[in-house]
């Protein structure tokens, strides 16, 4: 942890590393963004018959973080987002449940981005599919019934479609944020 301030000759504190502070602030903004999106998502009455299908709006923040600052920050944001939104809107079991999905999703997206050649919507689609598969695995170990796997194809398709939508949105938003950060 580098020290943020140092005393100059006048004895007043001066920010040593502006970009570090800016980065921390932006991470905080993105986290707030992700949490608000989780809340907005709860408000949207989007409840198809199959449990586990959701828009995954909060993934927007993770995607932006991944493409703005790289994989370490994206992973950090994913974990903090899952824990915080679990505490705010859900229960302890929900944290475990969403952590599994979110971490697997983030890892898949990170790997695909590093592999190169994949466009953002597709990376996001794979992330969405991986998220649903991760949650399904947790559900599978929780109830220990093969019947859960009956939902697998539906969840896979749903994760892909919502992932593409979220990915398209973030690929549209990304250039503007990059311009702001540069300027």
């Amino acid at each position: 942890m580098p020290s943020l301030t140092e005393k100059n000759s006048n004895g007043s504190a001066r920010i040593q590393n502006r970009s570090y502070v800016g980065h921390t602030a932006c991470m905080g903004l993105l986290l707030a963004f992700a949490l608000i999106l989780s809340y907005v998502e709860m408000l949207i009455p989007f409840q198809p018959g199959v449990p586990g299908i959701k828009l995954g709006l909060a993934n927007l923040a993770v995607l932006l973080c991944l493409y703005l600052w790289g994989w370490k920050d994206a992973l950090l944001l994913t974990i903090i987002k899952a824990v915080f939104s679990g505490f705010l809107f859900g229960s302890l079991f929900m944290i475990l449940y969403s952590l599994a999905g979110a971490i697997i999703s983030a890892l898949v997206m990170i790997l695909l981005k590093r592999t190169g050649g994949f466009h953002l919507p597709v990376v996001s689609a794979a992330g969405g599919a991986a998220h649903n598969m991760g949650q399904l695995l947790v559900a599978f170990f929780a109830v220990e019934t093969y019947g859960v796997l009956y939902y697998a194809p539906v969840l896979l398709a749903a994760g892909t479609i919502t992932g593409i939508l979220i990915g398209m949105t973030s690929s549209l938003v990304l250039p503007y944020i990059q311009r702001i950060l540069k300027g």
Partner: protein
Amino acid sequence: MFAYDKIIPMSRFKKDIILLSGICAVALLLWLIPFLLNRINQSAPAIVSIYQDGQKLADYPLSEDQTLVIPWEDKGYNLLLIEDGRAAVTDADCPDQLCVRQRSISRNGESIICLPHKLVLQIAGEEEGDLDAVTY
């Protein structure tokens, strides 16, 4: 024709398309697996066992289409129809007719029961029948 391909060459999306079709293929495969498993289960030799008054009268394979009359103490009867791998009671002279109204059965463990005639029809796989004998 306007050449879209020259503005945005499709080759740029080659990997994208491969990945997306891969996900679709996995989804399709997962969707098909239950159907295939059901097929295998159905092709396994299943039998319908007939119990009357708690005693096993007979086993009949579901693979053979046939109609059987199961008599009840010279007073009544149940008509058992085995067709397309499913068993159903199509006619009976019992007072409540519940056995006739029940859906046809084909899966392991499913049963049709006629209480007035103390009749139980139960589906079992061949192996399952052996296990039942062991537990008794």
